[in-house]
C-alpha cells in the first residue's frame, strides 16, 4: 500500500516544487524588466536621443548591439528607454482596468437586481463595438496623448473584467462557505473582502497578466495613429510603426522594439500562468 502511494506523493511534491521554481524565475524576470524600466536612464550605453547622422542605419555590431536608426540613434538605448513608457503605461492601464472591472463585477454579482441589469446592459453596449475603433474614437475626442489613450483603452476593456468578476461572484454566492459566513453575521464588506475577492482574484489576475501583451499592442497601435505617445518619446509601439517604411532596408529598427515587446509579453504571460497554478489552493498544501 505505502509503496504504491509513494510515487504519486513524490510527483505531487515535484509539481509543487516546479510551480515554486517557475514563480521565482518568472517573477525575477518580470522584476528585472520592471527595474530595467525604472532605472532605464542609467542603463543606456548611449544617449537615446543623440543623433549621429554619420552613423545612420548602421546594422547591429559590437558597438551598437541593435544597430542604429535613420538618425544614427543607438537602438539598444532607445529600446531600454522605451521600456519606461511602454511597460509603465501598460501596467497602469491593466491595473486600472482590473480594479475598475472587478469592482463593478463584484458589485453587480453581489447586489443583483436592477443595478446588475443596468450595469451589465451598459457593458454589453461597450462590447458590441469593435474595441479598437471605439478606443480610437474616444482617444480622438479626448485629443491624443498617452493619458487619453489609457482612458480610451480602459473604457473598452473594463466590461471583460466586470463579466468575469460577476460570474465568479455569482458562483461564490452559492458556496456553502459563503452561506456560513453570512450565518456568522459577517456584513457585505467583510464577505466581499475576506471571502469573495481572495477566491476570485486568481482567475482575474491571470486574465490581466495575459492581457498585458494585448494592452501593450493596443497602446502602441494608438501611438502609431498619433493618439498615444508622440515621437520623439521612445515608446516601443511608436518606434516600431515609425520605422515601418524602412522594414526591408533597415529591419533591425523595427525588430529591436518588436523583440522587446515579444520578450516582455512572454515573461508576463508565463508569470500569469504560474500565478494561476500557484493561486490554486489545492496545488499548494502544506
Amino acid at each position, binding site marked *: 500500500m505505502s509503496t504504491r502511494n509513494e510515487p504519486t506523493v513524490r510527483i505531487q511534491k515535484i509539481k509543487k516544487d516546479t510551480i515554486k521554481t517557475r514563480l521565482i524565475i518568472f517573477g525575477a524576470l518580470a522584476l528585472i524588466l520592471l527595474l530595467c524600466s525604472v532605472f532605464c536612464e542609467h542603463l543606456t550605453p548611449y544617449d537615446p536621443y543623440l543623433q549621429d547622422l554619420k552613423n545612420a542605419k548602421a546594422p547591429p555590431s559590437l558597438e551598437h548591439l541593435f544597430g542604429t536608426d535613420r538618425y544614427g540613434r543607438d537602438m539598444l538605448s532607445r529600446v531600454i528607454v522605451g521600456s519606461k513608457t511602454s511597460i509603465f503605461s501598460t501596467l497602469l492601464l491593466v491595473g486600472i482596468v482590473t480594479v475598475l472591472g472587478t469592482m463593478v463585477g463584484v458589485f453587480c454579482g453581489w447586489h443583483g437586481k436592477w443595478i446588475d441589469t443596468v450595469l451589465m446592459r451598459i457593458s454589453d453596449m461597450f462590447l458590441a463595438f469593435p474595441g479598437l475603433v471605439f478606443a480610437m474614437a474616444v482617444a480622438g475626442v479626448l485629443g491624443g496623448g498617452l493619458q487619453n489613450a489609457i482612458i480610451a483603452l480602459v473604457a473598452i476593456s473594463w466590461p471583460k473584467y466586470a463579466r468575469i468578476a460577476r460570474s465568479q461572484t455569482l458562483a461564490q454566492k452559492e*458556496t*456553502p*462557505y*459563503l*452561506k*456560513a*459566513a*453570512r*450565518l*456568522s*453575521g*459577517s*456584513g457585505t464588506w*467583510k464577505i466581499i473582502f*475576506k*471571502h469573495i475577492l*481572495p*477566491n476570485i482574484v486568481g482567475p482575474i489576475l491571470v486574465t490581466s497578466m495575459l492581457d498585458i501583451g494585448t494592452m501593450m499592442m493596443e497602446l502602441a497601435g494608438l501611438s502609431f495613429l498619433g493618439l498615444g505617445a508622440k515621437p520623439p518619446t521612445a515608446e516601443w509601439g511608436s518606434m516600431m510603426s515609425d520605422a515601418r517604411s524602412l522594414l526591408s532596408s533597415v529591419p533591425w529598427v523595427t525588430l529591436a522594439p518588436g523583440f522587446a515587446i515579444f520578450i516582455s509579453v512572454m515573461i508576463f504571460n508565463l508569470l500569469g500562468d504560474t500565478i494561476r497554478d500557484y493561486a490554486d*489552493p*489545492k496545488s499548494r*498544501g*502544506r
Partner: protein
Amino acid sequence: MEPVLKVENLTKVFTRKGQPDYTAVNHISFEMSPGECLGLIGESGSGKTTVVNMITRLLDSTEGRILLGGEDITRLSGKGLRKAYREMQMVFQTPTDSFDPRCTLGDGIGESLRNNGWSRKAAKDEVVRLLEVCGLSADFAGRYPHQVSGGQCQRAAIARALAIRPKLLICDEATSSLDVTIQQEIIDLLNELRWTKGSDLSILFICHDIALVQQFCEYVLVMYKGDIVEQGTPGEIIQDPRDPYTKRLIASIL
C-alpha cells in the same frame, strides 16, 4: 413555554424560465420547543434543504411566516438578520465546502465571535476551547479545510455553529456525506452537546436516514414532495406508518 422556532404555512415556489412553476415546499407548519430535537426526514428532492434555507433566510420564502423565539424574521435583512443569526446556526451537508478554502478552520470558527465584538485574543482562546469540546486538538485551528478529513471538518463546522451559543442548531444532512462509523461519532457528539449544554439547545435534524433519526430525535416530520405527510415520535412512525410513502420508507430499512 415560547417555542424556539415556529413555522407557519411556509411555502416556496420556484419560478424558472421556460418551465412551469415548481412548488418545492407546500404550506408546511411546525414548531419546536426549547431543548427539543426535531427530525425532518424525506427522500432527496423532497424540499428539506429548501425549508431550512428559508428558515435561515438564505432563501426568500414565497409565503408563510417564520418566528424565531417569538420574533418574526420572515422579512428581516441586514443588521436585524445578523442579530437573528446569534440565535440560529447551521451545519452543512458538505463539511469541506462549508469552510472557505483560503481561511483556516480557526478563522472560520472565530468569525461569528469577532463579528460580535470579541477581541482577537479572546476569540482565539474560545476557538481552542470549542475545538476541544468537539473532540479536536488545538492545532486544527491553524489548518486549512483541505488538510483535514471530512469527519474532522464536520466537527469543526459544529464548533463554528456553537461558537456564538445559539438556541437553535440546524443540521442539514450533516452526517450524509460521512461514512457510517464517522456518522455515529458525529451523532454521539451532537448528543453529548445537547445534554451538557443544560438542554436548552434545540436541534433541527434533517436526514434521509430514518434509523439515525430514530436514535436521536424525540419527534419526527416526514416530508414528501414538499408536504409534511406524517408526524409523530420515531417509535409511532416506525411501528404504525399511515402514509404510503412512509410505509415504503420503513419497509426499505427493515
